[in-house]
């Protein structure tokens, strides 16, 4: 996004013109990478970095969706429970094996998952906009509903893929790679590129920012505020479903701990990435970086022998707060 003055006069951009707020999360990530390497040199090994990046995929994908919801001034607390629900429905469908052949089965299951995710998002969006209820309350409610439905479907236990053959076909979606790049990383990149494209280059994206910035101004400008908000929740639902597509082949099951606290991780990733929680600012790439930061912090903690296992949570919390402070001080310059 180089905004050259339209007069045609070339404008020299010095480093001072760079929006430091947008760069800050990447600086924080770089600092963490250096820190991790000092603590344990194996950290910077390509295998470890790929592991971490791959593991961050679920949160990153979900957080791209959350960037839309939050930019439009909304909030979705149900994404973790929704992940478990979508995963459960998808696995049950595959266990019922209504189709012949593994590939058609997988394709149908994936389509179903995306459809269920979109429907869950639509429900969140409609209840929020048509019902005019605070999104915090709505999605807190649907969070409980999705979680309970999952446990009901699982009859209290976990839902595992029965067919080992199908499992083997599906496994590469998490464990496979293309030219050495793990598939989940590619999925994150594609989702983020599409997300950035929609948010920055289309009129829908512009409307999202306008609605989050000031919904009165948006309404007086003739923007269908409720429709825009609802669509952001649908995008969130689809992102959750895509994350599930990558999650299911990893352990082949939906358990009661699937997606636990993912909503908070996703929101944290979004905020670390520089998106304002009050809406009106959306940074897709910052969000992806935020998700990486979260995972890297956890990785460094396990790889290091710095603190007792009881204190890891405290150190993680402190690192996140410090990252935000660094970002704040950069943007205040």
């Amino acid at each position: 996004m180089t905004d050259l003055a339209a007069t045609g006069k070339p404008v020299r951009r010095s480093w001072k013109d760079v929006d430091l707020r947008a760069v800050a999360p990447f600086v924080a990530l770089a600092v963490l990478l250096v820190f991790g390497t000092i603590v344990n040199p194996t950290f910077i090994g390509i295998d470890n970095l790929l592991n971490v990046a791959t593991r961050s995929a679920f949160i990153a994908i979900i957080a791209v969706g959350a960037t839309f919801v939050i930019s439009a001034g909304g909030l979705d607390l149900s994404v973790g429970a929704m992940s478990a629900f979508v995963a459960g429905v998808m696995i049950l469908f595959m266990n019922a094996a209504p189709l012949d052949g593994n590939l058609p089965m997988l394709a149908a299951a994936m389509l179903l998952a995306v459809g269920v995710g979109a429907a869950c998002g639509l429900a969140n969006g409609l209840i929020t906009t048509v019902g005019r209820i605070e999104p915090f309350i709505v999605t807190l409610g649907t969070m409980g509903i999705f979680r309970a439905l999952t446990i009901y479907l699982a009859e209290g236990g976990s839902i595992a893929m029965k067919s080992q053959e199908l499992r083997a076909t599906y496994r590469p979606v998490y464990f496979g790679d293309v030219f050495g790049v793990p598939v989940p990383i590619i999925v994150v990149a594609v989702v983020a590129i599409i997300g950035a494209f929609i948010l920055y280059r289309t009129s829908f994206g512009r409307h999202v920012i306008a609605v989050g910035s000031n919904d009165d101004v948006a309404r007086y400008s003739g923007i269908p505020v409720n429709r825009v908000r609802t669509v952001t929740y649908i995008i969130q639902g689809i992102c959750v479903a895509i994350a599930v597509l990558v999650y299911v082949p990893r352990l082949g099951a939906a358990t009661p701990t699937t997606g636990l606290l993912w909503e908070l991780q996703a929101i944290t990733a979004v905020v670390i990435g520089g998106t304002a929680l009050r809406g009106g600012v959306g940074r897709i790439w910052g969000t992806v970086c935020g998700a990486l930061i979260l995972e890297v912090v956890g990785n460094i903690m396990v790889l290091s022998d710095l603190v007792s296992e009881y204190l890891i949570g405290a150190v993680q919390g402190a690192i996140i707060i410090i990252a935000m402070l660094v970002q704040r001080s950069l943007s205040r310059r």
Partner: protein
Amino acid sequence: MSVAVPRASTIPATAAPLMEVRGLAKAFGMVEVLKDIDLTIASGEVHAIIGENGAGKSTLMKLLAGHLQPTRGTLSIDGDPVAFAGPVDAEHRGIVLVHQEILLAPDLTVAQNIYLGRELRRGFTVDDRAMNEGAAAAVRSLGADIDPSVVVGRLSIAQRQLVQIARALLVPHRLVIFDEPTASLTPTETEALLAVIDTIRRKGVAVLYISHRLPEVKAIADRVTVLRDGRRVTSELADRLETADMARLMVGRDVSKLYPDHRAAAGDEAVLEVEGLDVPGYAKGATFRLKRGEILGFAGLIGAGRTELMEGLVGLRTAHGAVRLDGRPKRFSDVRDSMRAGIVYLSEDRKGKGLLLAESLRINLTLAALGRFVRGFLIDKGRERTALDGAIEEFDIRTRRKDLLAGQLSGGNQQKLLIAKMMLLDPSIIIIDEPTRGIDIGTKEQIYRFIASLAEAGKSVIVVSSEMPELIGICDRILVMREGRIVAEVSGEHMNENEIVVHATGATAEEAALVAERA
């Protein structure tokens, strides 16, 4: 608008100056926005600072109240040089600033707001009774009567402003700075406020009064300082300046002709016919016609339902009734319907409903007509930039840089940007609500000329305004609303303040004459 306020009979000319300003300058980066300002402020005197938007009034005020530090120059109080570390420091020396925006917590009571952050305590608990009494006394000393236990959210704008003033005056004060205090007040409310300022002056306090409204300045000020382009043009006793002089000094040229010539529309072809339009809770049975090339004014007191009627008409509020456009019945259930039909509404609330203050000029400009800038799925940013260049040129939007945020523009330039934004929709009917609120005189003139040129071009304009001279100056006809109903239509020689006030207030002709006489 004219206002009458009893003038303090004598100005204590011999009084030692309270504050002296010498060679004050302020630069932001490379840009010097204030240059070599000299000023002498005396106790018991109302000193008005006037100037166009961008002349440096706000910066000067912030320097004096400690919100900013000067680049050069000195401030001295009672002859001793001072440098303020911040607004609190300035307050300790008796300098208080009454902000233009209402900065009160709407859910707290009047007393709670007045004592916010400096609550009176009895032991460990807050002493509500003492605070209520203190608040009542503070409000009463300003000549008003407001129940201190009412929550601020239920007060009128004028009452809130009084509360804000009472809050500011709670600390010991020697110099009170008012920043455009009357920008959102009706004439009656303005008059009450000026009386309050007079009360403050009579206590021997110095008042610095910043305003766009020259009749007010003429009415209240003892001394007037004119700023232009960051420099002091003159400081003069108010008695020696007429409003026309002030305007000329501010703009640097003759602006005696504020309102453009506008020939009333020749034809009688109605483009918009409204019949029995109800906006529940606000307007009832509104019936009127708008002709091609006409400028139609809507006058009335604040709260008469003018804004709500317009919002109902374009589909921003629920409304019932018949609307015909070019003779064909229309229903606008959503504002997008009316936009598509060629009607645009420019809100009176520029900052709250008109512009995204935290976004760039480009994003604001194209927001309503974004569809025009989309090619395939993509927004064509090049075309947006071209449009911005065009709008800056056409509407004379004055901005140092094109990548500023809308909130960084002055009020007048924000209004021009809002007009440019809505004109991108290429409307045939333009409804402008309070087109010049909080805007300096030079920009006002531009906006009037622009409205007139729209009408010349065959478009129809509805102007909603609380400034009667403005309506009289530019409109062909004026409809007057009172308590949600259109009560009168005035045109030709009947278009005068006296007659409009009669209709707007429901007062008798005698009462109105009395008001007019005082004016």
